[in-house]
């Protein structure tokens, strides 16, 4: 790895200046769990690295009824899944932040970094998309917002312009009778990259015996050049009763939308098969949570969660 200039500004303004000066030759450092590996692999050879962790705004994690959830770009996973507000209102994010790497990685890696790294297989991005999250960006021209589903533009590339940086990710508080779930398939039980991931967020209506989907959002990992919002799969559920059949139909739409490739993590055909399995499971998990039922996360699950509608 080539040596570079290490800077650690304490304000957003300073950070934007440091980034703007170098353009493509500057990289933002938050948790570093992707960046440092990429520097070693010479995927990037920046002249300047801007460590943003001394900036208060990127370290804030807050949940409020009015503003919803705001996750500073550098907040590490371990703070997210330890947060009671997140656990209660955004269980699908807890699911995702708990399975990114192991405990050591989670001590450093941030959802902001996961998003900016723009890996098609990033675990947190489908969960963020399912919750309707927005990225809050600052740059030389001021602040702007980007929907998370539009943030990634290709494997490893994102919508940030030179000089811009991610400040936070925010999303509205879920309404009553809603729930989210993220899961992925890996051959081991931890420490793997998703072969396929699926996140779902649903809002239910109707009475307990005759539940209907008011809305649903479904997003996938590792089956396209970017994490994929399958809007049509979610739309297919609107107004439909909560049944194995409607869920299976949505999963079939997700399978159609997936554009997987074959690599050493899994053949394309198998990935497409998994999209169907995982989309169903993500939806069932989200429905159960919307109904107030317990769906375990990675720490709580000492066995296979039962993905069956009750």
């Amino acid at each position, binding site marked *: 790895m080539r*040596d570079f200039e290490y800077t650690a500004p304490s304000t957003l303004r300073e950070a934007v200046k440091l980034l703007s000066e170098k353009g493509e030759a500057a990289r933002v*450092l938050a948790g570093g769990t992707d960046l440092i590996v990429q520097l070693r692999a010479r995927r990037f050879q920046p002249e300047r690295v801007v460590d943003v962790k001394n900036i208060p705004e990127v370290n804030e994690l807050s949940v409020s009824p009015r503003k919803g959830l705001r996750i500073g770009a550098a907040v590490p996973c371990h703070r997210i899944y330890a947060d009671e507000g997140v656990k209660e209102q955004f269980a699908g994010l807890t699911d995702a932040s708990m399975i990114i790497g192991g405990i*050591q990685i989670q001590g450093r890696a941030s959802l902001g970094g996961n998003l900016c790294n723009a890996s098609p297989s990033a675990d947190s991005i489908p969960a963020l998309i399912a919750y309707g999250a927005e990225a809050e960006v600052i740059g030389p021209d001021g602040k702007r917002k980007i929907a998370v589903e539009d943030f990634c533009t290709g494997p490893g590339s994102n919508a940030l312009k030179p000089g811009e940086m991610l400040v936070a990710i925010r999303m509205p508080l879920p309404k009553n009778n809603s729930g989210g779930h993220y899961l992925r398939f890996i051959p081991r039980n931890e420490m793997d990259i998703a072969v396929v991931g699926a996140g779902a967020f649903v809002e239910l209506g109707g009475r307990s015996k005759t539940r209907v989907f008011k809305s649903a959002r479904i997003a996938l990992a590792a089956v396209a050049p970017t994490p994929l919002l399958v809007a049509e799969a979610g739309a297919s559920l609107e107004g439909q009763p909560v049944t194995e059949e409607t869920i299976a139909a949505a999963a079939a739409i997700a399978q159609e939308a997936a554009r997987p490739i074959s690599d050493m993590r899994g053949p394309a055909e198998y990935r497409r098969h998994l999209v169907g399995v995982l989309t169903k499971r993500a939806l069932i998990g989200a429905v159960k949570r919307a109904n107030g039922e317990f769906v375990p996360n990675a720490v709580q699950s000492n066995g296979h969660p039962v993905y069956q509608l009750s």
Partner: protein
Amino acid sequence: MSKIHVQCTINGEPTEFLCEARQSLLEVLREELGFTGTKEGCNDGNCGACSVTVDGVLVDSCLILAAEVQDKTVGTVEGLASAEGLHPLQQKFLEHASLQCGICTPGFLVASKALLDANPNPSQHEIRHWLAGNLCRCTGYDKIVRAVLDAAGTAE
């Protein structure tokens, strides 16, 4: 490029060092400061042999730049034992024969201590989940998990 001056606390001792921006905390601990108890197994965050704590949080020292620990406290395996003797985890690892080659042991001990600090009574599943970021190729993990359960007093 000129070197960076970093002040931090390592195992309770105020420490300062000079490093290049590209040097990881692992490299500085091992090559500059002589803390060779922290091991390098993969240098990309997938084996946990280089586990240390930074401000009490368990991390892989290969995936943190040395320059980032300015004003922070770092804990390594060398800080586990004291003048009073071995840490209970170290003692239990010995009693349960939890190490064979021993290269992963410092990482497992640092990680296990961080676990018990956060969760003094972990279940077997919680231990296995927490330690999934630490690879051991000799033991099959059985005797490591037993030692941690025993140290926590939560043998089922």
